[in-house]
């Protein structure tokens, strides 16, 4: 009875949509009569390709043109050719390990910060994700609930994540209250350089770890149970079963997950930007924020320089993505 009612309501609601589709069919048949099946193929493809071309391919081309032209104008015809000047400006350094000796010191600060962030965040997060996935794959009750606990921050927006943690890490926040309970000194989590970097890493792990837990858990569950049963029958200790069965079979998944995490970490921006605004000072300035600020926010707006920087970042990402595609193919073959 209930399901019957549902279908009636559904039918009433979907009726206008169906009529619309039937009405569209009349011009469609006419068009098919003129253009034939190839015409229909292009009809199906064109909307997507049009948007795709306009907002992905054209910008890509413009990006390259921007990076070799100068000035603050946005129209290509108003810009003059400067060759590799932007790249030279970005890459010119006395000592590449010391950003202060570079012409574009902010770019190098952002680049080194990003490298530091990527390695810290990815390594801690992956270890955390592997342990969690292993535990969730064990014999526990309410697995779906626990998986949800670790996963739900993934869906929160960066602004929400940033604000939740800003609230908890502020001077009068709950973290300092916990320290206070233990008679410890209050910490300026977001205004001291080292702590602010640690906070950025921690918050970004909190926000993303669930995604990797989910993928690793799926990988673990795909390992056939009888392998473990056979190992148990042979009297293999669990630790050995982990090193000899779990790890080798999870390894392809793990590699793909690591590269995926690297790709995401290189682009770090929004939640950290909301959390600390990139500060204190430049301690949380990362590449995306550098591009954003040079391209849009600063008074000395320089689209060419921002484009050159984003091409450098894109080349890092392309290498990582190619690695990921290769690894996925290798994993599927295995």
């Amino acid at each position, binding site marked *: 009875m209930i399901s019957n009612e549902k279908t009636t309501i559904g039918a009433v609601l979907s009726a206008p949509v169906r009529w619309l*589709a039937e009405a569209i*069919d009349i011009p*469609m*048949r006419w068009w098919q009569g003129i253009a034939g099946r*190839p015409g*229909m193929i292009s009809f*199906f*493809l064109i*909307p*997507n*390709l049009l*948007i*795709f071309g306009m*907002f*992905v*391919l054209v*910008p*890509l081309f*413009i*990006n390259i043109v*921007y990076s070799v032209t100068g000035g603050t104008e*946005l*129209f290509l015809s108003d810009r003059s050719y400067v060759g590799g000047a932007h790249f030279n400006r970005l890459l010119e350094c006395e000592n590449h390990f010391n950003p202060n000796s570079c012409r574009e010191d902010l770019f190098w600060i952002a680049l080194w910060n990003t490298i530091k962030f990527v390695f810290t965040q990815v390594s801690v997060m992956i270890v955390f994700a592997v*342990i*969690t996935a292993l*535990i969730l794959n064990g014999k*526990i009750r309410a697995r779906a609930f626990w998986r949800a*606990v670790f*996963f*739900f*921050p993934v*869906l*929160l*927006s960066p*602004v*929400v994540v940033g*604000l*939740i943690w800003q*609230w*908890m890490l502020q001077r*009068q926040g709950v973290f300092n209250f916990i320290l*206070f309970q233990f008679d410890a000194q209050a910490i300026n989590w977001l205004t001291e350089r080292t702590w602010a970097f640690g906070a950025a890493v921690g918050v970004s792990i*909190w926000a993303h770890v669930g*995604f990797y837990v*989910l*993928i690793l858990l799926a990988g673990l569950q795909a390992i056939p149970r009888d392998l473990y049963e056979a190992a148990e029958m042979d009297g293999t200790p669990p630790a050995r079963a982990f090193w000899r069965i779990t790890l080798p079979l999870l390894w392809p998944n793990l590699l793909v997950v690591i590269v*995926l995490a690297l790709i995401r970490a290189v*682009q770090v*921006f929004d939640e950290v930007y*909301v959390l600390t605004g990139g500060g204190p000072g430049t301690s949380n300035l990362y590449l*995306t924020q550098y*591009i*954003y600020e040079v*391209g*849009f926010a600063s008074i000395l707006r320089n*689209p060419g320089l921002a484009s050159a920087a*984003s091409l450098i970042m894109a080349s890092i*990402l*392309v290498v990582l*993505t190619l690695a990921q595609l290769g690894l996925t193919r290798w994993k599927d073959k295995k």
Partner: protein
Amino acid sequence: MKAITFLTRRRGGDTWHWTDVVTFAWLGFGLIIMFGPAIWLVMSSFKSPAQLAEFPPTILPYVSETVEVPVKGTMKELPLYTVTTEGEAPRELAEVRRVGIIANMVDPADPETVIKVNINDRTPVRRVGLALENYAKPLRDFNFGLYLWNSVFVTGVATIITLITNSMAAFALSKYDFRGRNAVLLLIVATLMIPISVNIVPLYSVVSSLGLLNSLWGVILPTVATPTGVFLLRQYMLTIPDELLEAARMDKASEWQIYWRIILPLTAPALAVLAIFSVVWRWNDFLWPLIVLSRKELFTLQVGLNTFAGELNVQWHFILAMTVATMIPVVLVFVFLQRYITAGIAGTGLK
């Protein structure tokens, strides 16, 4: 008895193994770390500004108790305090007026006699309650109603356009053989590598020359041609047998009818996954709307919230309430559609 043995049963046997201890410790730690912040946010969002400023903080939100007392002939609502002076039992008194550290207080039962109390000898009477004006005021007075509408509009329209254009393209790329198909596919794979953060500067100039700056369409259009969506749907459509299409053609169905009546209904599960992800992506978008929208009345909830948090002299009670409001739709999606989301991620690595 049976239930207890059932609940306490552990791996392998009846006894606790050290791995069980580790498991429960880890899960407990995870529960606090992952869930705690959200609970803390919701609790804090219902606290009054005065209570938020308190240190140490309380977990539950409280409101101060008041009492109606006749003062010089008129009824007034006065805050209630518990007063403890030396040598006397604690009493509940209402504050009429405060001068420096001395408060003039009255007993609600006997409003004529004024009692002078040192403010260090009293604590406000409170009960658990919600400061709902934290929510009401921003939605009414600070444009948040408008931001909410903008976000709903962007999310809804972008998701519909994504579903239509992506499914049409996926249909053409999976069910027809034509010259250049592989080239198109390759192009799409290639652009999977280019995230929007790399393309923001030139994308801005494209959107600007199309006259879409400061328009919600400027937020919507660049995001709808997701290569991920086309890919996901195409993989799914490849599993639909071609015989179905041939049979429909025999029955004189047009190509449009084949797409609309056969392919789309059969692709429903994949469309559902894409729809859910598209809603979450668009609702949460931050960087791109931040760049395109500079007029306040066009802000989406995310941009509005960020600006609000940055510009006001940190009115945390409003910020926290609006943060909760911003995450509600996503939490609802998660609670009701979790199955699709986890299946989508585990199956395709979508995010």
